[in-house]
């Protein structure tokens, strides 16, 4: 008998039995009427493959240490050919996995596929859901940016609330005395070794059980013949996967969202927010004050997961048709709806008092950074030092402050920053702190150059927009009291107006034209 296939296939089949392997892997009899809803599992396998391959690519460049993690991820996106797409695929692939797991679970619930004898496979699936979420959580610590750091702090503190063993789990997750180098290596090992190994074992078990029991198929027996998985269902799977692959590449083409500023345990103006798929849990935590917090962080998520695990025993009727299973499907739909609403509420929450605009000193500093030769002689495209851009500054604040005071000192962290009250220096330091936290400077409405002068000559004594000295009056609303001409007179020589004025005359220090511009700027403060 001649067998189909070329000589190589025959040679391999004689030695490795690849035809048997194909039979085991692909010749799966499917109940009639199996169709598009049964492609969700293949979508997850596709997502898993994308995450494994792109993860290996990222691991070729990534360094899991606090002083290099941010820089190495930044290098992947800016210095590696195709690196931006690679990180984009891994980032959006993670979101795809979460969405696909949710759709897959919803499909199983609505089709009642967890019913006997598939209870065990359902439980394996729920464990895999947790593995996917654990991948997301451990993955976004790795860039070691602000979001990474604070999400980790919050996660470890949540685990501390677990009854009895909370402290033990928290220190197991943290590794060292604080969230730092030992936490990063621990989470890295979990993300690239422990969880992938667990995933391979659990997915193999999930597929083995699926093949052993056969798929559940439509909720009622459909007319028609049973069909093999390969090739007709495989084509359906591939169609859905192909569409999603195009969507994924489209999303990833411009890369992942930019890195946030490097982790800074002392920063006080950062607003920590988790990745979108944890926003629902984040929002839930706000509703349980004081000693009830454990309800939001542990009890409710625990009850939801327990309910899911027990579903095959809660929903035990004979029929799998949705109309006979309204209570269970109602609870599931309501839960999904609540999770969606919580996620939306979490996404909309931005504490207003922290999203303040740039004050005059910070704006003056931004103007100096862009135009002053002390900065631009070294920083810029094709210069010896990198351009100064929002969210791209990895040096710690005290390094930056020392560097601004004395840019020649290459490693300012080695000694204390000298004290300074030079107005330009203060302004540049303030603007760098803003840029470091990722805030883009506001557009220049043509007043920046005046603001540099205001910062240089006025803010040592006067308070404007909450910054400056307190020896003179607060000038934030001075335009309500004085017109431009009156202000101009006072700047040139205040003694003309008030004989005992403490303020020095500035007429001989600033050009007449600049004084006019300063006066006009203050006259507009109302």
């Amino acid at each position, binding site marked *: 008998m001649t067998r189909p296939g070329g000589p190589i296939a025959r040679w391999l089949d004689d030695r490795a039995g690849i035809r048997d392997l194909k039979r085991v892997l692909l010749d799966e009899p499917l109940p009639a009427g199996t169709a598009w809803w049964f492609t969700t599992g293949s979508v997850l396998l596709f997502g898993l493959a994308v995450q494994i391959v792109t993860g290996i690519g990222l691991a070729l460049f990534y360094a899991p240490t606090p002083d290099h993690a941010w820089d190495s991820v930044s290098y992947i996106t800016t210095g590696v050919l195709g690196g931006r797409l690679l990180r984009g695929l891994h980032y959006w692939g993670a979101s795809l996995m979460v969405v696909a797991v949710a759709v897959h679970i919803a499909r199983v619930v609505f089709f009642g596929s967890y019913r006997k004898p598939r209870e065990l496979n359902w439980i394996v699936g729920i464990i895999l859901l947790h593995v996917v979420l654990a991948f997301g959580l451990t993955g976004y610590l790795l860039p070691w940016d602000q979001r990474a750091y604070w999400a980790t702090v919050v996660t470890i503190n949540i685990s501390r609330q677990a009854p009895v063993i909370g402290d033990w789990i928290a220190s197991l997750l943290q590794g*060292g005395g604080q969230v730092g180098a030992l936490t990063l290596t621990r989470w890295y090992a979990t993300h690239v070794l422990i969880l992938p190994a667990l995933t391979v074992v659990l997915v193999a078990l999930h597929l083995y059980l699926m093949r052993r029991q056969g798929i559940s198929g439509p909720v009622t027996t459909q007319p028609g013949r049973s069909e093999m998985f390969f090739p007709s269902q495989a084509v359906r799977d591939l169609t859905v996967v192909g569409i999603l692959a195009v969507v994924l590449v489209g999303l990833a083409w411009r890369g992942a969202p930019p890195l946030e500023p490097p982790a800074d345990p002392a920063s*006080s103006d950062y*607003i920590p927010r988790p990745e979108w798929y944890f926003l629902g849990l*984040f929002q839930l935590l706000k509703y349980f004050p*004081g000693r009830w917090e454990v309800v939001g962080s542990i009890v409710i998520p625990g009850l939801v997961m327990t309910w899911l695990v027990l579903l095959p025993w809660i929903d035990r009727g004979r029929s799998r048709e949705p109309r006979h299973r309204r209570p269970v499907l109602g609870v599931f739909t309501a839960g999904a709806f609540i999770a969606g609403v919580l996620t939306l509420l979490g996404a909309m929450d931005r*504490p207003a*008092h*922290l999203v303040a605009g740039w004050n005059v000193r910070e704006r003056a500093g931004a103007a100096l950074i862009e135009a002053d030769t002390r900065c631009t002689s070294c920083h810029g495209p094709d210069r010896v030092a990198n351009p100064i851009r929002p969210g791209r500054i990895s040096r710690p604040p005290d390094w930056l402050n020392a560097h601004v005071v004395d840019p020649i000192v290459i490693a300012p962290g080695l000694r204390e920053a000298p004290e300074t009250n030079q107005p330009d220096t203060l302004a540049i330091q303030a603007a760098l702190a803003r840029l470091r936290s990722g805030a883009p400077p506001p557009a220049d409405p043509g007043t920046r150059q005046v603001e540099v002068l205001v910062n240089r000559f006025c803010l040592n004594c006067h308070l404007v927009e909450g910054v400056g000295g307190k020896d003179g009056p607060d000038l934030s609303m001075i335009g309500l009291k004085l017109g431009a001409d009156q202000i101009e007179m006072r700047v040139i020589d205040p003694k003309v107006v008030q004989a005992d004025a403490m303020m020095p005359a500035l007429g001989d220090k600033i050009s007449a034209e600049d004084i006019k511009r300063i006066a006009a700027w203050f006259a507009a403060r109302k």
Partner: protein
Amino acid sequence: MSTPDPRDRRSALARLVTAGVGLIGAGLAGLVGLVAAPRSRAPERRWRTAASIFDLPADRPASAVISDRVADGWYETRSQTVVYLDKEGDGYRALLSTCSHLGCKVNWDDGTKQFRCPCHGGAYDREGRVIAGPPPRPLERLPVRVNPQTSEIEVQL
């Protein structure tokens, strides 16, 4: 002497293999557990200089960053702890800026005269007592003293 039943011999060997594989597994798991298990270490508290008494504004708490070189495994890093210093009667008060809910950094908001947590909406008054939101405890108060020679506020941290 009776010959042993070969079935007994087989099941004894099967138990032996199971026990051997179990022993190897337990040994490997124990090794990983030993390496990964958390070690409890009580952080040592010391007096540290936070700020000069002349740097404190009268109308609001002032933040001070206390930097310290600390060992973090193989790595030496600079820990930065933010405390809020304030006048209290004849003395001073120092509050740790870490929210008692889940550890985010609180800010002093001059508009509402409250410490606000940017994460889950916790709010504390100027003395660190909880006013709103999920925090279960007030902000942690740290022992404070003033160094008479230097007029600097020292905080035990």
